[in-house]
């Protein structure tokens, strides 16, 4: 039950993009077409799950054990950068189709703040290993959900007749605002 709560909170009520504002750059950058949005979403789910597992193990079994938690940020960012690199090499060797499908989205994930945010929240909320894993998967799915909804809306928006000043980024931000209002409707569901 506890795990289900963490999962639903990460996907809907405390969505990374619309509630914590994590991963806004890719959210604004790659949400103009459905196809790329899905590709990016899949890559993020994959890397988030891995990050949750690896950073949990490193934080609890190396940093805490040797009294080095002040190295948290430096360690996390290096772990994420190397993880993305390893995943990229691994995919290129063993699954060229998936590698081609994800394309340039894989390296871009390193600078996606939602990944580092995930690792930080996990430490802050003192999740155990399984909770951290579920949190990672949930956050990834939540990100993908919002990204694909946004891409769907923006594909339609491309045909709209907007005032010149609002074209591009401003209307995307305002759409995101309205989407965030809609997601507030879920907030009665659970409290974290």
């Amino acid at each position, binding site marked *: 039950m506890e795990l289900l709560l963490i999962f639903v909170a990460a996907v809907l009520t405390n969505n990374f993009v619309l*509630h914590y*504002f994590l991963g806004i750059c890719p959210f604004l950058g790659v949400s103009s077409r459905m196809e790329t949005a899905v590709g990016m979403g899949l890559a993020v789910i994959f890397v988030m799950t891995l990050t949750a597992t690896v950073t949990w193990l490193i934080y609890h079994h190396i940093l805490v054990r040797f009294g080095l938690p002040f190295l948290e940020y430096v360690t996390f960012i290096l772990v994420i950068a190397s993880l993305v690199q390893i995943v990229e090499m691994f995919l290129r060797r063993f699954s060229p189709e998936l590698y081609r499908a994800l394309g340039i989205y894989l390296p871009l994930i390193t600078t996606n703040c939602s990944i580092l945010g995930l690792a*930080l929240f996990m430490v802050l909320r003192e999740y155990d290993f399984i909770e951290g894993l579920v949190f990672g998967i949930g956050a990834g799915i939540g990100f993908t959900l919002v990204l694909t909804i946004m891409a769907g809306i923006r594909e339609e928006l491309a045909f709209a007749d907007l005032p010149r*000043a609002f074209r591009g980024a401003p209307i995307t931000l*305002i759409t*995101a605002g309205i989407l965030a209002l809609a997601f507030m409707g879920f907030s009665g569901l659970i409290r974290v």
Partner: protein
Amino acid sequence: MSRRPWYQEYLKGLWEENPIFRMLLGMCPTLAVTTSALNGLSMGLATTFVLTSTSLVVSIIRKLVPGQVRIATFTVIIATFVTVADLFLKAKFPAISKALGPYVPLIVVNCFILGRQEVFASKNPTGRSILDALGVGSGFIFALTLLGSIRELLGSGEVFGHEVIPGWHPWVVMILPAGAFLTLGFLVAAMNAIERTK
């Protein structure tokens, strides 16, 4: 390399290359912490500190760092200064540190800090790099304080905790995440309109 007068390196960060309004970089902290003018200002100052220190170090060691590992090197330098800023805030200003929460460590992945190293500090002498960092930092502080003031004003009728409009009926939505997106959307549209009338 540009031969612009030195003060131009500072001034361009305020408008021409303003990270928020013109370049749309570093959105996450911008939207998340601007629930009040004070939070926006503290976040802007912390980020400017990290940006300037990183630019200083990067411009000094720019000839020693091999091209292949430069991104990793820059990132580690940024993470080091973020740790410094975070521990300083925790020790001296625990209230602000608490309000900003995990967004202080998230300065590490603020894309325009890495961006300035890549396009400026790694290619220019130390003096100009520091001016550039201070300029972009000031532009960021300006954007965050403005956004924070508008949200605080509409959300509670106050700016920096001082009552501005007596008897204001608070628009709760401005303090919530949706208000951040809406305010920034309208601000960027306004900046586009101003830019076009030039």
